[in-house]
C-alpha cells in the first residue's frame, strides 16, 4: 500500500505541516498586526512537500549549515519569487514584517518536518516505524491545535483588557500593544475595576465562598466516603449508588425551587445561601471520588490500626487522610474550581453588589455603559487565581484522579 512507504510519508507530512503552519501564522499575523490577511495555503503546501522529500533523501548528511540554508531557501522561494504573496494583501504591512512572517513559517515547517520524519527511510516502512510516524504526526498536530485553542482566547482576552476604549472601537481586531504607554494607561481597566467597581470585594467574596465550600465539602465527604468504603451498615449499597444521582438533575431545574425556598426563609440575598447550596452540589461528587480512593487502600491497614488502639475517627485522621493526600487535594481543587466558577446560583441569589462573587460581578459589568475591556479585565481577574492554584497543585490532581479511578 502506498501509505506504507517513506516517500509518501514525507510528501504527506511535508505538505500537511506547510499548510498547517501557513494557517497558524496567518492567524497569528492577524492577531498581532490587527490587519486582515488573506489565507493562501498553496505555496507553503508545495514548498513543504518539496522539503519533505528533500529531508527524507538527505537526512543522514544534513548538517547545521544545511538546516539553515534550507530554511533560507524556503523563505526566499516564497519571498523573492512571489514577493511575499501569502501575506501580501494589505499595503499597510511592511516588507520586513512580511519577511519575518515568511521566515518563521519556513523555519517552523522545516523543524516540524525534521521532527516527523526523523529516522524514516524512503522505502517501505516497518510496522513499528509506520505507527511511530503517524502517531507522532497526529500527536504533534493535536498538541499544537489544542494549545492554540486554549491560548488564543486567553491571549485575546488579555490583550483586549489592556487596550483603551478608543483603540478598541477603532479596530477591535488589533491586538497589538502600545508598549510606549505607561503602566497606568496600560492597566487602566484593572485599576478602574478595583477602584470603581468593587472588584476587591468580589475577589474576597469569591475566595471566601470557595474556601468555605471546600472546607465544608471535605468535612462531610471524608468521613462519609470512609464510612461507605469501610463500614458495613444496612442500605449501604443503595445509599452509595444513589449519592451520585443528584447529578441527573440539572442545576437550572433546582435553582427555581431553591430560589423560592431561600426567599421565604430570608436567606436569598446572602453569601450564606451560596455556602449552603454549593457544598450540597459538590459533596456527592467528592464522596464518590474519595470513596473510590479509600476503597483502593488496603483495609488491613485499618484493621492493624484498630488493633493498635485507634478509634475509627482517629483512623480517619492518622491513617486515611495522610494516605489519601493526593485524592483529597484533587477533590479540594475540583470543589474550589466549581465554587469559584459557579455562576447560575450566584446570579439568581445575589442582588446586593457588596456581596457579589466574581462571576456575578463580571455579569454586572455586561451593560452598555461599561466598556468592553473592563469585562475582559474582569474575566482575567477571575481566571488568574484558579490558574495559579491549578498549576501549583496539578501534580496532585493527576496522580489523585488516576489512583482513585483505577482500583475500585
Amino acid at each position, binding site marked *: 500500500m502506498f501509505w506504507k512507504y517513506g516517500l509518501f510519508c514525507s510528501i504527506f507530512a511535508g505538505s500537511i505541516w506547510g499548510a498547517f503552519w501557513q494557517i497558524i501564522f496567518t492567524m497569528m499575523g492577524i492577531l498581532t498586526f490587527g490587519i486582515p490577511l488573506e489565507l493562501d495555503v498553496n505555496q507553503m503546501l508545495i514548498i513543504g512537500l518539496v522539503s519533505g522529500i528533500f529531508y527524507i533523501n538527505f537526512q543522514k548528511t544534513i548538517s547545521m549549515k544545511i538546516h539553515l540554508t534550507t530554511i533560507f531557501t524556503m523563505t526566499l522561494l516564497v519571498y523573492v519569487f512571489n514577493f511575499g504573496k501569502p501575506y501580501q494583501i494589505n499595503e499597510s504591512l511592511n516588507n520586513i514584517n512580511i519577511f519575518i512572517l515568511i521566515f518563521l513559517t519556513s523555519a517552523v515547517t522545516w523543524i516540524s518536518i525534521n521532527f516527523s520524519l526523523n529516522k524514516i527511510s524512503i522505502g517501505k516502512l516497518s510496522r513499528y516505524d509506520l505507527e511511530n510516524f503517524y502517531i507522532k504526526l497526529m500527536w504533534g498536530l493535536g498538541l499544537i491545535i489544542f494549545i492554540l485553542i486554549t491560548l488564543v482566547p486567553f491571549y485575546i482576552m488579555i490583550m483586549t483588557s489592556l487596550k483603551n476604549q478608543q483603540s478598541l472601537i477603532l479596530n477591535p481586531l488589533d491586538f497589538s500593544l502600545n508598549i510606549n504607554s505607561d503602566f497606568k494607561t496600560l492597566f487602566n481597566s484593572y485599576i478602574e475595576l478595583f477602584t470603581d467597581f468593587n472588584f476587591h470585594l468580589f475577589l474576597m467574596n469569591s475566595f471566601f465562598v470557595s474556601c468555605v465550600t471546600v472546607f465544608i465539602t471535605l468535612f462531610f465527604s471524608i468521613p462519609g466516603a470512609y464510612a461507605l468504603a469501610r463500614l458495613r451498615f444496612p442500605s449501604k449499597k443503595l445509599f452509595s449508588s444513589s449519592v451520585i444521582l443528584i447529578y441527573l438533575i440539572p442545576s437550572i431545574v433546582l435553582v427555581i425551587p431553591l430560589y423560592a425556598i431561600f426567599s421565604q426563609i430570608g436567606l436569598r440575598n446572602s453569601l450564606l445561601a451560596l455556602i449552603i447550596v454549593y457544598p450540597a452540589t459538590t459533596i456527592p461528587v467528592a464522596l464518590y471520588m474519595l470513596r473510590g480512593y479509600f476503597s483502593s487502600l488496603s483495609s*488491613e491497614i485499618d484493621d492493624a490500626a484498630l488493633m*493498635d488502639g485507634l478509634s475509627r475517627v482517629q483512623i480517619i485522621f492518622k491513617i486515611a487522610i495522610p494516605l489519601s493526600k493526593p485524592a483529597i487535594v484533587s477533590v479540594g481543587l475540583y470543589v474550589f474550581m466549581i465554587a469559584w466558577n459557579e455562576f447560575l446560583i450566584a446570579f439568581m441569589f445575589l442582588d446586593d453588589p457588596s456581596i457579589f462573587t466574581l462571576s456575578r460581578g463580571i455579569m454586572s459589568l455586561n451593560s452598555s455603559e461599561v466598556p468592553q475591556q473592563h469585562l475582559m479585565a474582569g474575566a482575567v481577574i477571575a481566571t488568574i487565581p484558579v490558574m495559579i492554584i491549578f498549576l501549583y497543585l496539578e501534580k496532585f490532581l493527576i496522580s489523585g484522579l488516576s489512583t482513585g479511578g483505577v482500583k475500585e
Partner: protein
Amino acid sequence: MASITLKNISKSFADNQVIKNVDLEINDGEFVVFVGPSGCGKSTLLRIISGLEDLNEGKIFIDSDNVTDKIPYDRALSMVFQSYALYPHMNVFENIGFSLKTSGIKKDILSKKVVEIAKILRLEDLLNRLPKQLSGGQKQRVAIGRAIIREPKAFLFDEPLSNLDATLRVEMRLEISRLHKKLGITSIYVTHDQVEAMTLADKIVVLNEGQIIQTGTPYELYNYPKNLFVAGFIGTPKMNILDCYQRGGFIYLEGNKDKKINIKTKLMDVKKIGFRSDNVILSDPNKNTLLGEIKFCEYLGSEQFVYVDCDINDKLIVIKISPKIKVVLNKKVGLKFTSENIHFFSQNGNRINQNLN
C-alpha cells in the same frame, strides 16, 4: 500470656453462616494453627477472636475474662496480617512504636523498646526506612515487631507468609518458630498451607465449612485422621483413598474389575480404605500383589513418587520410593501393602480404626 476459650461461636454474613457453633480451648503458651481450604472460615474465626469481626452468638474468654463485647485494643492481642498492613507513611521506627505511642507512653521508653525489638528482629539498620523501601521478608519482620512490642496476651497470625516467595517463606517460618520458643506467647496462626501447619503447630485445628473437623497434634492428625476430609487434607502427597468392600475378612478394591488385596480386618462396614504413599511397597508383579503400571514419576532429590495405574476407576496410586531406583515408565509392577497405618473409613467418611485415645 493467656489461654483463650471459644464457646459456641457462630457468625453469619447476611444469610451465609460462615462459622457454625465452634468450641475451642487454647492453652497458655500454645502454638495453635487453624488450617483448612479457602473459604472454610479460618480467617473469620481469627478476626472474631481479635475483635475485628463481631459475632452473632457465643462467648470468647481470654483467661477468665469475657471479652466478647470488648474492642480489639482492650483484648490486648496483636495481629500480623497477610499484606503486612504496615502504615505506608511511617518509617519502620514509627510503625513498630505506633501502638505504644497511641497508648501515651513516654518518648524515651518508647524508643528504647523499639530499638530492643528491632534488635531481636535484626531491623536495627532499617529503622529510618519507609515500608516501600523494604523487601517482603523485612516488611513481615516489621509487622511482627509491631505485634511483639505491645507484649500482648496472644499473637494472631493471618496467613503471614503467603505473600513471600518459597525460600523466604521457609526462613520466616523458622523465625516465627524461634520467636515463639523465645517469648512463649500463646499464638494462633491461620494458614491454608498444611506444611506450615505441621511444622509450626503444637496443636492443629482443621476447619471446613465453618466447623472444626478435628483438633490435635500434628502427629495425631497425620496418623489418626478422624475422617476422610482430614485424611485428604493433611500430608503431602495426598493420602491414597480408594473405594472398597469386605469379603471373608479381606479387603477388595472396587474398580473396573474388583481386586483382592493382602489386607485383612475384623472391622465392620469398611467402605473406603486410605493409605499414605509410604505404606505401599513396590515389588515385582506376583500373585500376592496388586498389579499396576507406572504412569508418572516425580523425582524430588531426597525421595521420588511414582503414580501407578492399577485399573481402579482411573485412580492413580501414589507410592514413595527410594530416589536411587531408576523408574521405567509403563513398566508392570506389583503393589504390596504394609498392614500397619492403613486407615479404614465407613460409608459417611468417618474413621473406624481405633483412635489414639
